């Protein structure tokens, strides 16, 4: 099974920032190439990586549906080939990194079809990368079998709030048996360890409140530009190593 790391948690706890920092850690550390998936329909990860998102997975899904509906590609073999070609076109690249944005369906309602398509796409690509990082949608919506089947490691992110920790525990309950660990983000002094001790989750590390991260966020700058001595970046490296992903 490929290494697929999903970063999950309550909204606003810093999943996207951590996903970008993790990607930076991997690429910068020469650990091989990484596939980064923004599975949050709200988007935002492309900006954190300094990339301009173009087509999304949902654009591709809609194109395939249209092909079937208008009868221009009635042959399933051709449809699969087309999906494969367009999927590669949808990737946005930088050195040792490929990015895939999920997008947001135009129609209202459930995202099940998109999540099934997302899972298939991750399965098709992840074997060719040292690690796939998924920045998951907030909450537990994607933590069902539709997406989770591809995930080997679950990184639960929370701030020090009880609400955040409770969501992290719920996500793990729903996800079931998978390698999982907790990251406490934006903690001051020993708040992180104390918060984690209130859960039964394995603490992988604490990311301190970092003014530099806040500054990068405010200015919409790429986290590939943060200096090596950035506290949050160094903590992300430690967390990655603590998870023991090989």
């Amino acid at each position, binding site marked *: 099974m490929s290494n697929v790391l999903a970063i999950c948690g309550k909204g606003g706890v810093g999943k996207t920032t951590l996903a970008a920092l993790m990607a930076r850690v991997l690429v910068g550390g020469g650990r091989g*190439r990484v596939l980064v998936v923004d599975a949050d329909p709200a988007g935002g990860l492309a900006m954190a990586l300094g990339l301009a998102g173009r087509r999304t997975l949902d654009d591709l899904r809609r194109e395939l549906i249209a092909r079937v509906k208008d*009868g221009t590609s009635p*042959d399933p073999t*051709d449809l699969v080939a*087309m999906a494969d*070609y367009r999927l590669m*076109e949808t990737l946005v*690249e930088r050195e*040792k990194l490929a990015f895939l944005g999920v997008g947001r369906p135009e129609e209202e309602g459930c995202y099940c079809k998109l999540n099934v398509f997302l899972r298939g796409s991750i399965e098709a690509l992840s074997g*060719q990368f040292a690690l796939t990082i998924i920045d998951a949608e907030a909450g537990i919506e994607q933590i069902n079998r539709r997406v989770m089947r591809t995930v080997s490691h679950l990184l639960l992110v929370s701030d020090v709030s009880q609400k955040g920790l409770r969501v992290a525990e719920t996500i793990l309950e729903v996800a079931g048996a998978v390698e999982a660990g907790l990251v406490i983000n934006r903690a001051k002094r020993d708040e992180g360890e104390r918060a984690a001790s209130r859960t039964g989750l394995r603490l992988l590390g604490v990311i301190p409140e970092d003014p530099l991260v806040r500054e990068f966020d405010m200015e919409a700058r790429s986290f590939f530009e943060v200096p090596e001595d950035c506290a949050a970046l160094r903590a992300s490296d430690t967390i990655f190593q603590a998870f023991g992903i090989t």
Partner: protein
Amino acid sequence: MGLFDAPADELGRLLARMERDGRTRRLTPLDDAALGRWACEAPQVVLRSEGGLELGSTSTSSLSLVLWDATTPEGDEVFLVGPDLPELEDSAPFGQVVMARVELDDDAHYERYRQLREAVYRLRVRGVMTRVLPSRQSVWCRVHRDSLRGGLDARVLGGSLCAAVRALPFVRAARVVLVTAGDDALAELAPLADRVLEVATALSKIHETAMDLDCDDCELRAVCDSVQELRRIHTRLAGEREAGE
């Protein structure tokens, strides 16, 4: 008459003309052991920053054709029109034509043609990312710079395409033509490509949609008039559907 007799004949004439003009090279085929060094299990992903060569990318013209006939020689053949891959720089228009010598002992033409195309679409060569967009007959091939340094060339790519289709039980041999000579060379193949697409589309529609057998009022009439095998297939399928109702 077979489904692709006309474009297959046209390809033969074109190759003969190109050989006379010194515009194509017939490459010595590699044996299966040599090709095995380049085989891999998974579809390859080569990032742009790793690519030594981009052939027929999304912004460059390209052509991918798959057809068959019964007259292709017994052994595999690889033709190269233009510079070999290590001689190219950065990116180039690209064409690949795969013509299989088939022996069909049943009426499953559509299924066999699908299998043939699938073998081409699913080509696995180490360090070579190929993706085909059938609706546009285009191919996108990105070659990792390490593979180019390691000796990947047209013999490997063409030979691997031959081996991929020859693995099918109804394929005896294959003729592969790789085109790197630029847009003009691809343009020479365009009429042939139109013909192949016309037949492939008709074959697909006949099988995938429940078309009426009313030749007077059928969008496929022109192509069926020139490729009698299509009309025979359509008639047979219509008869089977009627019997099943």
